[in-house]
């Protein structure tokens, strides 16, 4: 029977399967970080269990670490959490890229970057943006802390097989739009719960043309549509990206891996439970106006009037969103002024993102009322960007240039929005308070964020100069 890539990977990781029970899946790579692991390690100790495969586990710190030079942790609770993961990885013999490692970074940036995330793997992490690793053709999904403990103890996870959703997009992305706009456009179309219960395969000519980093941006936000996993079938681009990376297979292993990886793409007649078809021409530079990632309009648009929504629940949500965001219906997006601009996060902090933002910023100065922050996704990204002089482009324009981490994406380290502050952000969530209590987030692409930092308000990067 023809199979989807999702089912192929699933079936190749089945440890145990019985009707009426969830499938037991083997986990090839378990990524861990400081926020969702302390209680899991405690659970192991409490039950006299150990880490079954420390060599399949990779640890770093990213969420709560300061991104300022020197990385002085002043928050005692954060300090304890960082020390705790350090102690836990030492006790159980787990590889750890600590805060001062030159390979530290956001867990979803370093996995692919080190070649640890590979096609056909099952990858889990106690973080919902684990779907990012789907860009290399892996089945990757976020889990909670008890599930982290489960994987540490058994290297397996009982899971119900997800339904499959094919999202096919064809055509070239219009000039001035980016993979970020593509995924915002997809979420706009299918909604924030559009992919609940499903694993997504992104396919079509648009995805074939996307760079690996662009695919990561799209897969990253699968969860924002409710999909736990989203992947792109591996192709020559995937293989070229992986070849030579530290943990990528070498020599005869590489050839053997390639044979397997080439067998992974969905069979031509494979059946998906659902399918969505889009044309890349529908994609514009999108800006979110509300408090969930589905609430966006093109930059040339206006803040909608909640009265336009027929559904009572949607209308209520829109009203609440506008109240929180302090926006009036009918306001032109380009008239929204900003206090802060954040370029970073597991969505948009890779070298291509920084290059794109720098190309917009080069030779200009940020708006005097705006504080702008550029936070590379990993220390390797930082080093590569500095080798190209991108740091100078940003600092000369008045942007801050930081050490790697999650930074202002989630309001749990020193980089936060103050109450009422408005931010153009390349991150993934515009929930109430996400970037700090009372902070207001507008999700955009790196190019749109960079341009907004210069102009002080949103501008259409397609026509702005």
């Amino acid at each position, binding site marked *: 029977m023809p199979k989807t890539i999702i089912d192929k990977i699933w079936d190749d990781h089945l440890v145990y399967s019985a009707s009426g029970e969830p499938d037991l899946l*083997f986990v090839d790579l378990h990524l861990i970080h400081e926020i969702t692991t302390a*209680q899991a390690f405690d659970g192991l100790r409490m039950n006299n269990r150990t880490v079954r495969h420390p*060599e399949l586990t990779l640890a770093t710190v990213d*969420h709560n670490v300061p991104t300022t030079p020197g990385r002085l942790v002043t928050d005692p609770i954060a300090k304890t959490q960082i020390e705790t993961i350090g102690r836990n990885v030492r006790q159980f013999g787990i590889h750890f890229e600590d805060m001062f490692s030159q390979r530290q970074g956001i867990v979803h940036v370093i996995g692919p970057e080190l*070649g640890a995330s590979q096609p056909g793997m099952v990858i889990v992490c106690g973080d*919902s943006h684990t779907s990012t690793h789907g860009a290399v053709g892996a089945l990757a999904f976020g889990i909670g802390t008890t599930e982290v403990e489960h994987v540490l103890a058994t290297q397996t996870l*009982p899971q119900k097989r997800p339904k499959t959703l094919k999202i096919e997009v064809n055509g070239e992305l219009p000039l001035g739009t980016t993979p970020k706009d593509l995924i915002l456009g997809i979420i706009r179309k299918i909604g924030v719960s559009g992919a609940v219960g499903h694993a997504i395969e992104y396919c079509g000519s648009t995805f074939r043309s996307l760079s690996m980093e662009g695919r990561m941006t799209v897969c990253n936000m699968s969860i924002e549509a409710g999909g736990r996993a989203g992947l792109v079938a591996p192709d020559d681009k995937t293989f070229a990206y992986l070849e030579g990376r530290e943990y990528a297979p070498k020599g005869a292993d590489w050839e053997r891996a390639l044979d397997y990886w080439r067998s992974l793409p969905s069979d031509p007649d494979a059946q998906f439970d659902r399918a969505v078809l889009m044309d890349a021409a529908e994609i514009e530079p999108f800006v979110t106006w509300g408090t969930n990632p589905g609430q966006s309009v093109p930059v040339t648009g206006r803040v909608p009037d909640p009265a336009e929504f027929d559904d009572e629940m*949607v209308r209520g949500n829109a009203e609440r969103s506008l109240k929180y965001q302090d926006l009036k219906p009918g306001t032109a997006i380009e008239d929204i002024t900003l206090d802060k601009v954040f370029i970073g996060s597991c969505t948009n902090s890779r070298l291509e993102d920084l290059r794109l933002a720098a190309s917009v910023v080069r030779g200009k100065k940020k708006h005097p009322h705006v504080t702008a922050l550029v936070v590379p996704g990993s220390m390797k990204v930082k080093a590569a960007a500095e080798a190209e002089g991108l740091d100078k482009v940003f600092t000369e324009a008045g942007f801050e240039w930081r050490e790697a981490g999650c930074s202002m994406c989630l309001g749990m380290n020193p980089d936060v929005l103050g109450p009422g502050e408005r931010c153009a952000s390349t991150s993934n*969530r515009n929930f109430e308070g996400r970037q700090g*209590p009372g902070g207001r987030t507008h999700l955009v692409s790196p190019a749109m964020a960079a341009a907004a930092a210069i102009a002080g308000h949103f501008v259409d990067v397609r026509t702005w100069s």
Partner: protein
Amino acid sequence: MKPFTKEEGLVAPYDKANVDTDEIIPAEYLKRIERTGFGQFLFYAKRFNKDGSPNPDFVLNQPRYQGASILVAGPNFGCGSSREHAPWALEDYGFRAIIAPSFADIFTNNCAQIGLLNVVLPEDRVKQILRDVEAREGYTMAIDLENQTVTDPFGHVDRFDIDPFRKHCYLNGLDAIGITLQHEDAIRKFEVQRSRRMPWLPVFSR
């Protein structure tokens, strides 16, 4: 985990779609390394004013909902971040069950790990319950997991669906790791085959 068999208790309404886990517990409060004590941070930004005093307008601060053990909410409850701190906070606050038209995948898995029941009822019915809760002070419901029923104070009985295996785990408070370890032979066998079939897979040294 704590078994769940029946729960009869006061119902609190949370009339909103797409309640995300950042709203349930903001990231600022995820830095603690303990597993308990998160109830004080539940819905923190909504529940408390900037000076830390309780916000009297927030639904759970209203006297009539004190001691509620069942929360009724809009669709896609628990979306966003995978933080298990969200179910921990709900459970620590005193909720034993949440009723909604739908739940986010990771949230619902996390709830199952700690015995916090998720009950899915049709959207129209949830809307009706939310109206009834609002209209009648002291509105209680009785959830019977064995029979998969929810009974409202008017005697109306709703049946709900739940995956049979998940139900079994809830009823008996089963530890998923313990269940998995019963398949030790299957795991061993898989490990041997895996290293033979895919010798290229990455390993990390300490």
